[in-house]
Structure formats: C-alpha cells, structure tokens
C-alpha cells in the first residue's frame, strides 16, 4: 500500500464509468460498471481499468471491483452507490468511498470531488 498518504491529497482517484477517458460518462453503479477511470493526482495521468466481473460474475461483482481498486492502488472511489459487500471490501482495503457521481463526464466528477472532497449525500 503506497497510497497511504496521511494528508489524503495524493491518492489515486477512481470514477466508475461506461468507458475510458475523462470524457466518458460516469456510471452510478460500482460493481456492475464497465470500468474505472483512474486519475493519478501527482501527474494527472489518466488510466482505465476494465471491470472484468461486471458481466461474468453472477454474484460478487462488487467484491471483485473492490479487489481491482486495491490492486490499482486507488485511494478514493467516486461512484453512485456501493453495495454492502463491496463497501466492506473497500473499507478493509482502506479505500475511501464518495457516493456522488454529479456531472456529465468523468472529468466533471473529478473536478467536483477536488472542489469538495466530502460532499453531503443528496437528500
């Protein structure tokens, strides 16, 4: 775990999305998202991790996605909603979850998070 930066400012940020790139549409689903756009804040490079379990796994897709996040060294996940098993897995991996997916593109979601890293859940 190289992402355990106490300030939390340099953690990789992952957004559940329908495809790669900052112009992709964010997906409100975590476990069943097509993949995750991952932004490295140290150099703003953008990567994409396909969510292999989204269609192949009948059950446990959320857990598999959480495992993929840990493997990709992600510190924060921005998504719509996380199921209970995925939430437990992400917590065990020390990954922060922000259940917000406001924005037309993944870029919007990332900018929104940077402006307000701890948004209140929508009422």
């Amino acid at each position: 775990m190289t992402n355990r930066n106490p300030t939390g400012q340099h953690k990789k940020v992952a957004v559940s999305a329908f495809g790669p790139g900052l112009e992709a549409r964010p997906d409100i689903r975590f476990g069943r998202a097509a993949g995750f756009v991952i932004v490295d804040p140290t150099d703003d490079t953008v990567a994409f991790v396909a969510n292999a379990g989204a269609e192949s796994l009948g059950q446990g897709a959320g857990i598999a996605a959480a495992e993929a996040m840990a493997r990709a060294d992600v510190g924060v996940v921005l998504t719509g909603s996380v199921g209970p098993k995925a939430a437990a897995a992400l917590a065990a991996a020390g990954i922060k979850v922000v259940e917000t997916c406001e924005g037309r593109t993944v870029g919007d979601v990332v900018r929104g998070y940077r402006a307000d890293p701890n948004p209140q859940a929508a009422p």
Partner: protein
Amino acid sequence: MIVAVASGKGGTGKTTVAAALARIWGGDRIAVDMDVETPNLHLFLSPSIAGEQDSTLEVPVVAHPDRCNGCGKCSEICAFKAIVTLGGRPVVFPDMCHACGGCLEVCGRGVLQPGKRVLGSVRWGTATGDTERDPGSLSFLMGQLNVGEAMSPPLIREIGNCLASMLEQTGGDAIIDAPPGTSCPAMSAVRDADVLVLVSEPTPFGLHDLQLAWRAFASAGKPAGVVINRAGWEGGAGDAAMYGFCRDEGLPVLAEFPFERMVAEAYAKGLSLDRASSRHRHAVAKLVSRVSALGSAAQ
C-alpha cells in the same frame, strides 16, 4: 421406492399431486418437502413436528490474522469471491462461500479455521394419511431455507441424507415434492429418486417448461411419466401439443386432472386433491398404482 414430483414450470400442481400421493400411497412412507425456498407441503398434510435441526455450511473464519503473511493463496483458489485479500489480510464474505474448503486447504499458516453458516433448518414429524386404505405410517420431512439465503442445494442434499437414514431404519417409500425449475435445486432433489412424476399444465409455458425439465432430467435414465393438471383448461389450448410431446418422448400420461372449481375450493381450504371429492380420491388412487407400477417395472 423414492418418487420425485417435479415440474419445469412453477404453480402447475406439484404440491397438490405430492400431498395426494403421500396420503393415498399406503404402507409406510415419508412425505418430503424439498422445495426449501417456499415449502408448503405441510399446509396440506398438517404434520405434527417432532424435531428440528439447523442445516449449516462449513465456511472459513479468520481465526489468527497475526499469522497471515498476505500471500493471497486463499483468495486465488476461491472461485466465488468469498475470501479476498485486502490490505494484506484475508476478508471473508460468508454469504458467497460454497464450502469447497479450498482456502482452508491451501493456507499453510493456520490463519483460517472452519466455521459455520446456518442455511436453514430441517424438520421432521408425522402426519395422517388416508385412513380408508391400509394406513401404514406417514412420516414427514421438510427443509426451510433462511430468508435471504441464496444457496439451497446443500440444504436439499442434507434432507436427502436424512431421508436415506430414515428409510434405512424404517424401510418403506418416499414421495418428494421437488422445487420447480431445472437448475441445481431441482436436480439435487430428484438425484436419489427412482421414479419421476412431472406435473404440467396445458399452457404454452407449461409445455415449454415441461420440455426443459425433460431435457434436464432425461439423462439420468429414470422412469418417468406426466400428470396433466388443469386438463382441458379453456384458453389453455395446449392439450394436443402436450400429448404430442409426451407421445414423441415416450412419456406415459399417468393422470389428467381437469380444471375444476371444486379442486380450487378444496385447495383454498388446505385440503389435498384426494379430499376434494370421492371421484378425485379414486383418480389419485389410480395414479398411485400407475406410479408404483412404473417404479416396480424399472426395479
């Protein structure tokens, strides 16, 4: 002889037929409800329950996390994401576990220990059969899956083991009310049966699912026959097609029960089919001898 009453489609009358068969069968027999997700055979047999036992699955428990070196072997062998290495430690999701024991086997450091997850319960007791025939004894056995539990085959197999030991002690026959469908629960329920009674209805869905069921069950090579429930149902329009299918597959039609208000009224009162009228009782008795002949011929 073990008779399994199955069907592809749900709601065709499996329990109706199984309850009536069990009541009229004669001699010592056991009525078994293996439809553990929604057991309802007891509603028609009103058994008195003598005992109950939890049915459990062996799942891993992280007993000594301090011994873990984060090697990840336990999660690599798991095909169901029931154990995942996160933050360098195994995290167990008991709901996902199929109890293969692989993780316990590969961990050479004693991190994991076998624990238990309760799937549901197995209950047994006695019921009263039709008293006009040689009553014999009618025993009762059922399983009930816990709400939210997804895995029924291990519980169904456990009922099968209970049934085997009951039959070993007392002898006699068994009539199983199987779960609907053609997937693992249904296959687990008919596994040990000697005869299959497939209950269907002459509707497009009824025929379609009977065809699926026969494709799933036929390979076991067990003698089988069909009971057509709601025969001649107005608007059902499938009697001819169903007969055609049975003829082509060499499946005997063991009984037909017409769609009648009288049967529905008896059902609503919790009365089994044989108690709807003496005519129905006679029809069930005929079905009993046909099923029994089908099984004897094969043995």
